[in-house]
């Protein structure tokens, strides 16, 4: 029937193939989930309270398409004080409905059909489909555990063509927890400059960096104009469900993104914007959370190694990405059997790109108690697989 046939653009996007597994995971009673992608903390009370107050005061209307000016000013101040990059709150910052919307807007704003976008894999699941929705061509570069899952400048240079438009960066990385040093980033910056590319840098996990300080890509020398910075409140302030983020970058690009945003979204909900302003005022809550994540990170990594899995030491975000090669199972088989036989949810690495096969993603955004229990169950499973 023509009426309900689906557009080719959408049909070309493959389903993940393990949707069914996720549905079972969602319904299984007393399973421990290491499949979570959000903090287990509830949004700090001062933020929730500020939001309630805003509702009481009657802040329920639309805002400017750009987002509340006061919020953009606060973000501008924050980026300036933390990363020494100045963004004009009027024209260089756009409040988005999460980084998800920001990423979509960015690609739609800059990609013509046939343009190539360089991605590093394993990577977050939406980069590839969003690129395809715009008619762009995703060009995946595999990152390897031997090289700490780093995207190397020389690998980018090898893959650049006349059609290359942009590089997508996501460090600290979901799913690997990898981070890039300032030097790594500078090398990428050189390639971007040489080939005149835009760098779309999704820095949603920037605050969750455990060794050294996160370097904002646009803070690198000469990179501000060439970077589209995407960030949000979900991870650092435990505000996933609020759906609020922001994009900062070149005036023309931001203006183009705003053009799309005003027609599809109009504005980010004012309630979330009011809460975000309070979030920017309470940074010690983030520091407390980061301290706790760091303790859990070590507990998880040591634990995984002890039960016989080789595990890259993550530098940021809240994921570990251990290898399960020693079991001889595919990552989907591993995840399924672990769920059915021992009630632990993990994410098969293959979800994050073909090169994620042989790995699983285990989140440590769960309590210390759950980490211990999950590790014990996994140890029993590995024993039954003949590992250790």
């Amino acid at each position: 029937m023509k009426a309900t046939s689906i557009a080719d653009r959408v049909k070309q996007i493959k389903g993940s193939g393990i949707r069914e597994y996720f549905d079972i995971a969602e319904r299984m009673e007393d399973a421990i989930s290491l499949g979570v992608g959000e903090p287990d903390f509830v949004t700090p009370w001062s933020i929730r309270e500020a939001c309630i107050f805003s509702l009481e005061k009657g802040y329920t209307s639309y805002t400017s398409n750009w987002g509340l000016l006061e919020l953009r000013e606060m973000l501008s101040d924050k980026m300036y004080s933390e990363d020494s990059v100045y963004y004009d709150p009027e024209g260089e910052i756009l409040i988005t409905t999460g980084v998800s919307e920001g990423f979509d807007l960015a690609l739609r704003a800059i990609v013509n059909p046939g343009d190539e976008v360089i991605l590093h894999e394993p990577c977050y699941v939406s980069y590839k489909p969003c690129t395809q929705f715009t008619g762009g061509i995703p060009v995946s570069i595999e990152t390897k555990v031997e090289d700490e899952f780093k995207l190397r400048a020389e690998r980018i240079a090898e893959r650049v063509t006349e059609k290359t438009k942009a590089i997508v960066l996501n460090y600290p990385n979901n799913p690997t927890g990898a981070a890039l040093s300032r030097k790594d980033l500078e090398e990428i910056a050189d390639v971007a400059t040489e080939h005149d590319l835009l760098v779309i840098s999704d820095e949603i996990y920037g605050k969750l960096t455990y060794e050294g300080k996160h370097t904002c890509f646009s803070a690198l020398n000469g990179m501000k104009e060439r970077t589209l910075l995407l960030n949000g409140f979900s991870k650092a302030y435990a505000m996933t469900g609020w759906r609020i983020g922001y994009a900062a970058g070149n005036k023309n690009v931001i203006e183009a993104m705003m053009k799309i945003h005003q027609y599809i979204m109009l504005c980010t909900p004012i309630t979330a914007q009011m809460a975000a302003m309070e979030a920017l005022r309470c940074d010690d809550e983030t520091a407390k959370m980061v301290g706790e994540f760091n303790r859990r990170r070590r507990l998880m990594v040591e634990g995984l190694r002890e039960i016989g899995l080789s595990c890259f030491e993550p530098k940021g975000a809240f994921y570990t990405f251990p290898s399960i090669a020693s079991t001889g199972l595919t990552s989907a088989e591993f995840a399924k059997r672990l769920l059915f036989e021992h009630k632990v949810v993990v994410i098969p690495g293959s979800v994050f790109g073909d090169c994620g096969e042989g790995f699983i993603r285990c989140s440590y955004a769960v309590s210390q108690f759950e980490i211990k229990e999950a590790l014990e169950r996994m140890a029993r499973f590995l024993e039954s697989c003949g590992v250790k």
Partner: protein
Amino acid sequence: MKEERKEKQKEDEILKILEENARTSDNEIARMVGLDEEEVTSIISELEKRGIIMKYKALINYEKAGIETVQALIDVKLSPERGTGYDSVAERISRFSEVRSVRLVSGEHDLLVRVEGATMREVAHFVAEKIAPLEQVRNTVTHFLLRTYKANGEIYKEEEKGKRLAVTL
């Protein structure tokens, strides 16, 4: 100097972990702070020796346990003593086993004393018999505690949490 600072940071980290859960094993602490288990054990026993870790106690919700106790906060107004100020009388009050805490505070009164007893009458009696008559005590105001919402950093009524999805990519 750098070593000293690092050691201090590890100590602080260990204190934080124990403050949150005093039953965390040395082995787990070792993993979390990146030290050997033996090092953690020796740091903790050092902290105990120095009196930084004073004791390990359980935080008990007596209401849930069905154990009735009566607690009161007592504002105590004092006349300071020559030479020792408030110290000697505060220490004297501290020695009673019925007294759970004694703090010197700013404001209208001088000491804030928490007293615990089996019944309201017992607590009232204790205040009238043991605290009010002390020579330096000018007056007392007793507030009986009716209900605890939060104590020692813990909220008593468990907050209803929205359920997180088991899987988010």
